[in-house]
């Protein structure tokens, strides 16, 4: 079994995930960053994107995939913490609703780009 690191994913409303992970992949403003156990201290800003983690399970590795809003990641040798405004598991994404939101966002073309990007993110995941 691969080495693991305690990993927490926190939003203002709840702790979305709290457990052991073998690998955490986040999308920072500079690009994707894979974090393994024993990572050097790091504090990075995240842009809206997909957060992936390989979770430690007894038999096989389980994959955790979530669409997240902008936030931050704090990696220390002995733990990884991700703070985001909102995180949605892939299976919880309501495709019809998100598609409608995207359509509304596109219709309001003069709106800030961020909203469009977020709607797109929720729909496609990247």
């Amino acid at each position, binding site marked *: 079994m691969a080495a693991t690191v305690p990993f927490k994913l*926190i939003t*203002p*409303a709840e702790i979305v995930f709290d457990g052991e992970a073998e690998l955490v992949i986040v999308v920072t403003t500079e690009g994707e960053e894979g974090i393994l156990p024993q990572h050097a201290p790091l*504090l990075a*800003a995240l842009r809206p994107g997909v957060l992936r983690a390989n979770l430690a399970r007894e038999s096989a590795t389980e994959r955790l995939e979530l669409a997240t809003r902008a936030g931050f990641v704090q990696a220390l040798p002995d733990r990884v913490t991700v*703070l985001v405004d909102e995180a949605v598991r892939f299976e919880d994404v309501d495709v019809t609703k998100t598609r409608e939101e995207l359509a509304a966002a596109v219709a309001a073309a003069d709106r800030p780009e961020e909203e469009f990007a977020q709607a797109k993110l929720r729909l496609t995941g990247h």
Partner: protein
Amino acid sequence: MPTVRELRDRIRSLKNTQQITKAMKQVAAAKIRRAEAAQRRAQPYAQTLSEMLRDLAAAVSVVDHPFMREGKVGAPSGVILMTADKGLAGAFNSNLIHAAELYAQEHAGTRFYTVGLKGRNAVRRWGQREHPTWTLGAGKLATAREVAARTESDFRSGDVGQVVLISSKLISMMSQRPQTRRLVPVVKDELAGGEAARAKGAVEFLPSPEFVLSALLPKYLEFTLYSAMLETDAAFFAAQLIAMSNATDNAGKAIDSLTIEMNNARQAAITKELLEIVAGAEALGVE
């Protein structure tokens, strides 16, 4: 002296009132539990956020962010007044509004932002009809984001020289107090939490400490507002619980004293009737 019928009507109406206040008390008790649970759920986020800020404050020697600089000299204070949307909670809202009034007296030209309908109405009465305003109720996170964005842009443009928050602090279930604190500009020592920077070795910042800090500070403002909203919410229900519990007790006392009065009145009427019968019988010469 009121008649028996009048007293009975008043007792009945008081009993109805008592039932309503009792129901509101129970609702408040249930809601305060929910509000406290929401506060607890926000705790991990708060801790991690301030931890990150602490690391940053320790790592960045010269902080150059508008939030860290003193605001424009001579610009008015911006005050975020947080109240509940509803009343029936004793002096809860008026205490907060009074705190805001005192602040405005000391700082001429204060500009208000209000969260909560009661605060909105008060500020409108003071003549600021078109001030930015939100409700405390639904969608707290989205509201916090909007308030933070609005105050941030007003601070950056120099429309306000500082941002002050007046919200309720829940000291205990029995006691809530208005709290006035300055949110912006942020004092670096506050971020450090007074604690000596822990030597954790060099932390790498992506893309740069300045960038992370400039992203974290608005987040910090946003989250401070969010948790203040949660606390004000919880404090409101605590105040309402007490107010309604007192109202129920007072209604009970009034019912008791009116019941005694009613019994006296009934007894007096009976005695009077008896006297009249006896007097009538005597007049007729009945032995």
